[in-house]
Every structure is written in C-alpha cells, then in structure tokens.
C-alpha cells in the first residue's frame, strides 16, 4: 500500500533575494556609500535624470552608476560620457535587476572612493518592485507620455518607494495628460512626489535635493 502524506515547507521564494539585498546593504554601509534605486517606465527619463544629477553634483559627490537593461551598453555609454565609473548589467530577457546581479555589479566598483551609486533599473513598473537590491532610497520615475493613469495602474511599485517623479511635464499639454492627477495618485502610496522637466529644468532642484539628502543621512 502506498503512503501519502503532507510535508510542511514554509519557504518564501523571494526571501533569498531579500537576504542577499541585506548583504549588499551591509557592504555599502561598510564603505559609507549610499545607493539610489531608480525605477520607472520605459522612456520615462531615468537615464536623463541621472545624467543631469551627475553633471550638477560632480563637484560635491563622488558618484558611480550601475546601468541595468536588457542590453545595458546603450545607457551605460550615455552615463559614462559624464566621467563616472559605470557598470553595465545586461539582464537579457529578464525584466528587473535582482540582489544577485547587484552584488556582482558592486564587486566591480571601487567603493572606498565613492559617496553614491545610482542604480538604474530595467524600464518596468512591475517586476522591479519585488526585488530589494540593498538600496537606501527608491525613486520611481514616470512621464506624462505614458498617460496620466499610469500611476493609478501600478500602486504596488509606488507603495514600496520613497520618492515619485513625474517627468516631461513640459509636454503634458501636447499628450493630453494631467500631471497633477499623477502627483495626487502617487501621493496615495508614496510620501513624496514632484514634477520635473529635464528640458526646461522645472523641479530639477528637488531631484538634486533628493540625491544630496540621501548622501547626508
């Protein structure tokens, strides 16, 4: 006769990533380096915002970047032109960075010579939110061209974040989006949200302040 029984397992599949993320955080803290995880939609302006911060804060902070993308060379080339160390992380068909990839990226940076690492996540408002990388701050970037219901449609990623940025507000009228609605939707799930335009410079000081404040803590 066959004997059938239930064996308890009770293991969270995402727990391994969280543990590795905590290890990354310890490594960063040991070297006194802060990390900002920049997540957001495809084409929302993540790279442009990071480029701007690098240029404007170059005199104050020693920065590096980890560029995660399906083919990371494009963004990493853009960021490296600003004279900082950049580690490209190719995710292939994978839709997010995880703590394991982050670990490998950190291994390639001289952490002792740095104050801050920008981590540009894969353009996606879904998968990255489940994967803690060890960052000190989570910034979520969306732009008006994704439609002004984009924030309401993705509450989970905003709930896990610290700052939401609604970018490209200079073109809001041309794409028929209401950036104030996007801000209001974000504030339901995130403590801080503001509008920016890399083109006109609107709100950029607020973004730079987020970066500075992360490094002061």
């Amino acid at each position, binding site marked *: *006769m*066959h*004997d*059938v*029984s*239930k*064996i*308890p*397992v*009770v*293991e*969270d*599949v*995402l727990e*391994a990533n969280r543990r590795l993320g905590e290890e990354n955080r310890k490594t960063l803290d040991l070297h006194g380096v802060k990390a900002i995880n920049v997540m957001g939609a495809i084409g929302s302006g993540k790279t442009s915002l990071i480029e701007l911060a690098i240029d404007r804060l170059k005199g104050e902070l020693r920065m590096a970047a980890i560029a995660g993308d399906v083919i*990371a*060379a494009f963004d*990493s*080339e853009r960021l*490296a*032109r600003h*004279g*900082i*160390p*950049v*580690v*490209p*992380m*190719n*995710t*292939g*068909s*994978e*839709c*997010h960075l995880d703590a394991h*990839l982050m670990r*490998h990226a950190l291994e*390639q*940076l001289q952490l002792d010579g740095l104050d801050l690492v920008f981590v540009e996540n894969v353009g996606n408002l*879904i*998968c990255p*939110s*489940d994967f803690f990388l060890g960052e000190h701050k989570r910034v979520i970037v969306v732009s008006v061209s994704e439609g002004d219901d984009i924030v*309401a*449609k993705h*509450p*989970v990623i905003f*709930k896990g974040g610290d700052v939401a940025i609604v970018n490209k507000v200079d073109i809001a009228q041309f794409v028929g989006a209401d950036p104030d609605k996007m801000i209001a939707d974000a*504030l*339901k*799930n*995130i*403590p801080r949200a503001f509008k920016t335009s890399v083109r006109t410079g609107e709100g950029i000081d607020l973004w730079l302040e987020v970066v500075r404040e992360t490094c002061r803590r």
Partner: protein
Amino acid sequence: MNCIWGGVDIGQVRPRPKEHPLHEFSVAQSIVETVLKVAEDNAASQVLEVNIDVGEVALVNTEQLAWFIQTLVQGTIADGMKVLWNRVPATIRCMECGYEGGVRYLQEDPKWHFSVPTFECVECNSSQTVITSGRELRIKDISVRFDETGEGEKNHA
C-alpha cells in the same frame, strides 16, 4: 577583460547567467529546487502536489508560473505534480489610526484585467500604511508518496 566606454574604464561586462532567462522562469526554478530537495530529504518516492501561498499583490503570473513548474519537473519524481495556489489577501496596518485589515479597491475599469487595490487606510484615508500581507510567494507544503518498501529505503541508493 575590462571595457572602455567614452574613455572611461567601466569594468567587466558580465552577461546575465543563462539559467535565469525570465522573471517567472527563475521563480519557478527556485520553487522546483526547493520542492525536490524537501522530497528527497524526506525520502519520498513521488511528489503529488505543491501548495503555494501567493499574495494578492505579489507581482507574479501564477498561470505562467505553474506552466514553468510543470515543465521543469518533467523526468523528476515530481513529474505530473499538481500546483495549487492559495491566494493570500492584501492587508495593511495604518500608522496613524492603528487600523489593521483588508484594503479597498479602485472601481474596476473595463480597460484593466483586474481590480487594483489601494493602500490608503480604510478607516481614516491616511496614506501612512504598511502592507502586512499580500506580497508573499511561499511554498506552504507538498504532498508526497512513499514507496511500499517503507520510508527511508530510497536513501540507500
């Protein structure tokens, strides 16, 4: 070998390991590894089903995940294993008024495939809430069969 971009040494270009080609696939792989390990540690001869708690706002596609799991277990002692999902509802705790319990949902829009939860406090509308459950993806238990020769026999191999 290190790579130079724009005159800057950007370190080694490390490709994504081939064994993790997709979000749901790597999650499925991790589930299958755990299931097989637990079954083998307990000297089971066959795994009949796996029970997985999946949070309402965990960002995985369970249908796709089940398909990957069933593909990965082919040829193992878990071949043909049933994958059962227990949906764990989202709950929050309010840091302002102390409310603990379920969440509200946005009015379902026909454009969207499911109703979107909102995490504002149900009692006082504060946004100062934390998610207390609903994000898990947890293997709860497995149902296994032992050979009639008795538990432990398989360990001799």
